[in-house]
């Protein structure tokens, strides 16, 4: 099984992508998609040696929902910030300690932070234990860090570790 | 309805792109220009999708998808150039 499907989640995603690309579902597409979903990772898995061992799907979906919701909310908040007087902004760097060990999970954490308007992942420390984040408008730095850790990092732990 | 909405949307997109170009030319730093270019790419996706809807044609979708998937390569390379002086090591 591992030999044929070294990266099962990827394979599933590939099949889905294939159908989405065609914007259609048919027997032929399913068959060809399945074939490609099996074939491609066989070629490409060498390029992703750190492919996460475990991926839990349900937590992942839940996380996705949270993130999407946050993005919408943050976007709306940002409208005010961007269009309002510049002097009202309180931009600040904050350091987020990282407990995650799975590299891909850390990457996802950083991505989520960046995708949420108002925060951007700036840098990961060399030991991968802290993440420098720029926040456009910080009222309480510690609260911001806490929010990130509880809302996203925890969820990511559930997915990957 | 769609005609009117798309006119408004097109106008806003045009303005957005012009602002991007302004930042690109204004700088002041190289990174500012790169951000502007990156944003231009992203806004172009929106523009392409908008155009597709307006023309009722799905033919432009893949162009948007290409940008979504690989548009960041230019930005990555430029940044890497700024960071390391060379983009492939």
């Amino acid at each position, binding site marked *: 099984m591992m030999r044929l499907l070294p990266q099962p989640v990827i394979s599933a995603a590939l099949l889905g992508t294939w159908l989405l690309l065609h914007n259609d579902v048919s027997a032929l597409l399913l068959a060809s998609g399945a074939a490609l979903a099996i074939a491609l990772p066989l070629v490409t898995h060498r390029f992703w040696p750190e492919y996460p061992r475990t991926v839990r799907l349900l937590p992942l979906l839940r996380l996705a929902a949270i993130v999407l919701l946050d993005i919408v909310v943050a976007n709306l908040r940002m409208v005010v910030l961007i269009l309002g007087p510049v002097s009202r902004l309180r931009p600040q760097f904050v350091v987020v300690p990282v407990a995650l060990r799975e590299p891909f999970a850390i*990457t996802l954490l950083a991505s989520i932070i960046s995708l949420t308007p108002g925060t951007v992942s700036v840098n990961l420390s060399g030991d991968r234990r802290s993440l420098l984040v720029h926040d456009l408008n910080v009222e309480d730095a510690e609260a911001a860090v806490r929010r990130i850790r509880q809302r996203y990092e925890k969820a990511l732990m559930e997915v990957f570790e | 309805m769609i005609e009117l909405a798309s006119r408004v949307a097109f106008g806003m997109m045009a303005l957005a792109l012009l602002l991007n170009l302004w930042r690109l030319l204004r700088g002041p730093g190289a990174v500012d220009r790169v951000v502007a270019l990156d944003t231009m790419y992203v806004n172009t996706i929106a523009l392409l999708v908008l155009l597709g809807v307006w023309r009722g044609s799905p033919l432009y979708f893949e162009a948007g998808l290409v940008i979504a998937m690989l548009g960041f390569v230019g930005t990555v390379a430029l940044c890497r150039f700024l960071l390391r002086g060379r983009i*492939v090591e």
Partner: protein
Amino acid sequence: MTLFLTVLLPFLAVLPPLLVRRHGDQRSRLAGLCAIPTAAALALVVAAARDVFAGAVPQASVAWIPSLGLHATLRMDGYAWVFACLVLGIGLLILLYARYYLSAREDLPRFFSAIMLFMGSMLGLVLAGNIILLVVFWELTSLSSFLLIGYWRHDEDARAGARMALIVTGVGGLALLGGVLLLGAIAGSHELSAVLAAAGSVQQHPLYVPMLVLVLLGAFTKSAQFPFHFWLPRAMAAPTPVSAYLHSATMVKAGVFLLGRLHPVLSGTPEWFYIVSITGMATLLLGAYRAMFAHDLKGLLAFSTVSHLGLITLLFGFSSPLGAVAAVFHIMNHATFKASLFMAAGIIDHETGTRDMRILNGLWRHMPYTTALAVLAAAAMAGVPLLNGFLSKEMFFAESLFIAEMRGLRPIEPVLAVVAGIFSVAYSLRFIRIFFRGSGTGMPRAPQEPPRFMRIPVEVLVLVVVLVGILPGLVIGPSLAIGARAVLGGDLPYYHLTMWHGLNLPLLMSVIALAGGTLLFLVRRKLYAVYGRVHPPVTIEAGYQGVARAASAGAAWLTGTLDNGSLQRYVLLLVGMALLAGAVPVIGRFSAGALPRTPVDAVTVAGTLMLVTAAVATAALHRHRLVALIAISAVGVIVSAGFVRLAAPDLALTQLLVEIVTILLVLLALDYLPRRSPPDTRAASRVRDIGIAAAAGAGVAALAWGVLTRPADSISRYFIEQSKPAGGGTNIVNVILVDFRGFDTLGEIAVLGIAALGVVLLLSGVDLTASRQHGEVARDRAPLFLTMITRALLPFALLFALFLLLRGHNLPGGGFIAGLMAAVALILHYVASGTHWTESRLRLRYRPLIAIGLLTALATGLGALAFGHPFLSATFTYVDLPGFGEIELATALVFDVGVFLTVVGAVMLMLSRLGEPVPESPADAAFPTEAAAWKP
């Protein structure tokens, strides 16, 4: 055919001398080798005498270039026969003479080879029966003369003399070519016999004068006529056998030979009379005058030759029958006495080691026999009775009187003739004097008689001089008659060849000349003083030298100024020419078309504005290279969006991807280039460039406007109609690319493949790491987020690429787009994770990949041949797969796969090579250099 053999014989001896093994004393071997064909040719000519004397004109012809009227025609009338005898007879003597003259240590094969080349050419010249063929041989004589003058190549004078002779006579030959082409065109044929028969039509023709001038330019340069005489004295740097043979007896006679050859068709007009006779007269006088003051023995003889050639020219210029006879006669006489004089001079030089007449003295004491021969020949040159020179000079005097009479009794010609005669006597006396003055000491070497056989040629010639002088009618009469008859092209005038014509005016002139000459000789020292003062500081030769130097310097200056090595200049010229080409037809005639204008919208206006701004920014900020790159990337995005606006989805996709790869490429290169350009040095040129650029932009814009506003009707309707039924695809652009115009696409991927090979080629053997710029760099080589996302993205990007490839025939996509997609996804790994990491996982060899891609496309095209269809014929079919429905199978897809593979291979090869100096695979390493000489 005998004629061909005759001409061929000397040529047969051109190569063998060069192949003879070089050891020991080769002189006899080489001279003998050359003498055999010469003698054989002479025998053939002599054997032909019976026919020729009987009035026949042997002729042989082989077609060569009919459309040019150039046939290999040889023709031997009396005139040609006489010359052939001279060429071969004197040639034979020269070979013998040279055998003793030359030192065994010299590069003899070269000498004998060139002599034989000359002999063959000269023989061909005189026997040519086609006037273009005559020019062929004519120029060959100039070339062989060049080689012979420059024979002593270590001698600066020899080199300069050779080049001068070649340029002057070579140019004359070119003029002659023009002349004979005109002549042939006027006469309706280039065959000599036809030309000679066309006198009437030729002289009436409006192009007669230009043609005449061109022909005469050829003749005058060759025969060293004023003002082209100066090369001949310079040619004296040649070994004396050459001077004797080429530069007195034969080659320089080619010019006057030509005057005689074309006499029937060209002469008799006022133009001929004035140009030829005035030139001849000027040359006659100038040569005689200069010979008077030459101190070099050969120089004296050279100027004397110039003078005698002038005399012959003058005689032809008279256009009278008797003048022509005299000319032919003097040609023969001069050849004999002057050749023998040169040989004698050579002996003297050879024996004493000097040619300076101020040093030579008392030679008769040491070499009485040679002295006797030389004095006889010199006396002939002076026109002393009982010798052949007297006879022809007498005829000349007579003819000058006749012409003066014709022209109304103003005795210009006779007076000038006598003046020339006086000088001629005087310089002959100067020549004779060296034998008798002084005690025969003080010369570099003590002279003695030359070897027996070296004298024989001189003896033979002097014998002829004397025999002709005493018994002209018997010895030379028949030959002169047939020669002159051919020149006159009809009956001979009355003349009587004898030594004694009674007391008459010509005799008186001779007497005056002899007496005057003697007098002049006696007062020569005073003349030398005068000469030193009045001799013009600017001679023709100095003029020539000046012009040549100026031309050479001018050419060098012009070339250096135009071709100054500046690309900016060259581009400017190209743009300028294009502007000119585009503007001239349109200015004042430009009109827009009638096509209704398409309405505009806000985004397009904004887009155009952005495009223009970004383009201008690129140009304005180009010195800040990274900034300019970012700006041009913006141009690329806008252009891509523009393609979408113009309903070109395939183009948009392609442009976007190319854009990305281009940024990568330029960034890779920027690492090795300065980050900034230095400022342009001159503001003025920047302003000029802005002007030119604006004009170019305006020009193209106008062109675009002109076309865009015109209604269109194109072959594209066919593509739209046939794309699906005949091409099997709904993406018309793709069907055009892989089917209707698949040949273009094959070529296009070939270009891409070659470009990638070029990158390999350029980067082979260069250590890029050593060349890159070092600056402070961030430590993080492979940012984690970047590598993670890159790795996660790869299968999806490849899937997308395959998707685009497979659907390309029907929807936007195709091999090229897919190939770029895949390549970018792979290249990203080089960027994110480094070359080493990537290549240890990606075991793709790009060069074979390119080859396989190209082969796939090629094989798809070739497949059609198996079914009897033309290359690149595509086919498709619909297959019903149970359970899956109908799918299309098209060869076009295979072709597109070829495109895909080539693109992936090429792009990867280019970018990966630039990244890191990958240790070269042995296959790409430069081969070890075997021969050091091939080192670049």
